[in-house]
C-alpha cells in the first residue's frame, strides 16, 4: 500500500534541548496512526515538523509524496489540520469561522452538513467565544474536515470533551476512515486510541520507544489493556 506520511531520521532541537531524536515513521493510506507520549515528549513538535511549520536539523518528511514546506499550496488542498488549543478571532461567529475556512479551499465540504453531524448547527449564528470548551474543541475538529481531506492531522482531538461528544467525534471519524481517510492523531486517552488507531508510536523525550499495532503492543506486554501496556512501556524505558 501507498505511504501517505513518511518521516525519516527526523531531528529537531531547540538550542541544546533535543525535542525530536532520530524519529522514523510511516503511515499508510487509510490507516489511523496514533502518536502517544507524555506531555513534553515532542508530539506537537513532531506534528509541526511534519506539516512544515518548523524547520528541522536533518531528516526528511513527505506527506502524500510532497515536501510540506515547498509544496504547501498544493498539499494543503488535500490535508486537514487541527492544531492543539486553537483559538479564534474575538467576536467571530460559528458560521463565519466556517465560511472563512471554507473560502480558502478549491472544493470545500458543505460546512452546514458538518455542523449538523457534530450537532453544532444550532450555534450557527452564535459567537465562538460563547461555546463551551467541548463545543469549541468539536468545532476545531470540524474545521479540519472542511477541506475534505485525504489526510487529517488531529493534535489532542478530544481534550475537554464530555463522553457523549467524544462518541460523536469518534463516530464521524470512523465513518470517514471507512471512506479511506488517513488519520494522524495524538491523544492522552488510551480508550480513544484503542477505538480509533490501527498503529501507534510511543515517544518519550523525542525518540520512539515502540511502533506497533495496538493488539501486538498489548500482547507483548503482561497486560490486557492498552493503558496498562502504555504505562508498562514507559516504565521499562525508565528502568533502562
Amino acid at each position, binding site marked *: 500500500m501507498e505511504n501517505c506520511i513518511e518521516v525519516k531520521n527526523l531531528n529537531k532541537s531547540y538550542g541544546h534541548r533535543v525535542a525530536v531524536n532520530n524519529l522514523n515513521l510511516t503511515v499508510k493510506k487509510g490507516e489511523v496512526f496514533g502518536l502517544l507520549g507524555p506531555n513534553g515528549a515532542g508530539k506537537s513538535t513532531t506534528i509541526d515538523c511534519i506539516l512544515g511549520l518548523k524547520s528541522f536539523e536533518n531528516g526528511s518528511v513527505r506527506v502524500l509524496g510532497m515536501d510540506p514546506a515547498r509544496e504547501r499550496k498544493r498539499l494543503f488542498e488535500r490535508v486537514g489540520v487541527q492544531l492543539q488549543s486553537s483559538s479564534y478571532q*474575538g467576536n467571530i461567529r460559528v458560521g463565519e469561522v466556517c465560511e472563512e475556512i471554507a*473560502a480558502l479551499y478549491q472544493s470545500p465540504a458543505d460546512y452546514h452538513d458538518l455542523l449538523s453531524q457534530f450537532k453544532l448547527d444550532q450555534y450557527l449564528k452564535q459567537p465562538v467565544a460563547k461555546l463551551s470548551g467541548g463545543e469549541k474543541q468539536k468545532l476545531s475538529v470540524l474545521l479540519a474536515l472542511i*477541506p475534505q481531506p485525504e489526510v487529517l492531522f488531529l493534535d489532542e482531538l478530544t481534550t475537554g470533551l464530555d463522553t457523549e461528544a467524544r462518541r460523536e467525534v469518534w463516530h464521524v471519524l470512523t465513518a470517514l476512515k471507512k471512506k479511506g481517510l488517513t488519520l494522524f492523531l495524538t491523544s492522552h486517552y488510551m480508550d480513544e486510541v484503542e477505538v480509533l488507531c490501527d498503529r501507534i508510536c510511543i515517544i518519550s523525550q523525542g525518540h520512539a520507544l515502540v511502533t506497533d499495532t495496538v493488539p501486538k503492543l498489548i500482547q507483548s506486554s503482561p497486560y490486557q489493556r492498552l493503558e496498562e501496556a502504555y504505562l508498562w512501556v514507559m516504565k521499562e524505558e525508565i528502568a533502562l
Partner: protein
Amino acid sequence: MKKFFTLLKIEGKLSLRSIDSIFFGICMPVGIIILIGLIAGPNPTTSDAGYTLIQSSFGALVTVGICATAFMGIPLTIADYRDKKILKHFFVTPVSPTMLLWVHAVINMLLSVISALLIYATARIFFGYQMIGSELAFVGSYLLVMVSMYSLGLLIASLCRTIKTANVVCSIVYFPMLFLSGATIPFDIFPKQLQTVAGFLPLTQGIRLLKSASLGLETSLLMPLIVLVGSLIIGIILSMRFFRWE
C-alpha cells in the same frame, strides 16, 4: 480573488463589531471638526490670518483615522492573531497568511479614508469648507502619510512578541502621536520647547505636509518628505527583519 473578498467581508464585519476602532478613528475626528466649526466658525485663525481655523485644522484632523488604524488597529490585530495562532493556522491551508495581513491593511485603509471623507463632508456641508491648495497634492500626501504610518504600525507588531507588550507599546505611541503631533490639538498653540520635541514625531511631519498641501503654502517640504519616506523604508526593512508569524 474570491478568497480575498470573502476574507475581507468576514474580517471587515469583525472590525465593525469592535466599537473602539470606529469611535477613535471616525467619531472622534468628526466630533472635533464640528466643535472647531461651532467655536471658530468663519473667523480667521489668530496666528496666520487669511484662512479659517477649519481650513487650518483640516489637514491635521484627517490623520486621526490614520493614527487610530496605524497605531491601534493594525498592530493590535496582528499581535492578537499571532497570539491566538490564527496566522500560524494559515500556514496549513493553501492560502498564505500574508493574504490575511493584506485583508487587514485594506480594511484599515478603508476606515481611514471613510474617516477623512466624513470629516471633509462635515466641514464642507456645515461650515462651507474649501480647500485652498491642490486636491491632487493633498490626496498624494495623504496616501504617503498613510503608508508611512502603517509601516510603523507593522514595525510595532513585528517587535512586540506578545499581545500585552503590543497593548502597552500601542498606548505609548498612539496617545503622544494623537495629542502632540497636532492631529487633535493645534500644533501652533504649543509652547516653543514642546514644538521642538513634538517635531520629532513622524506624524507631526506628516501633518506639516498635509497642512501645506491643503492651504497651498509655499514652504519647504524637504524635511517632512525625508521623515515620511525614511519612516516608510525603515519600517518596512525592520518589519521584514523581525516579523514573526508565531
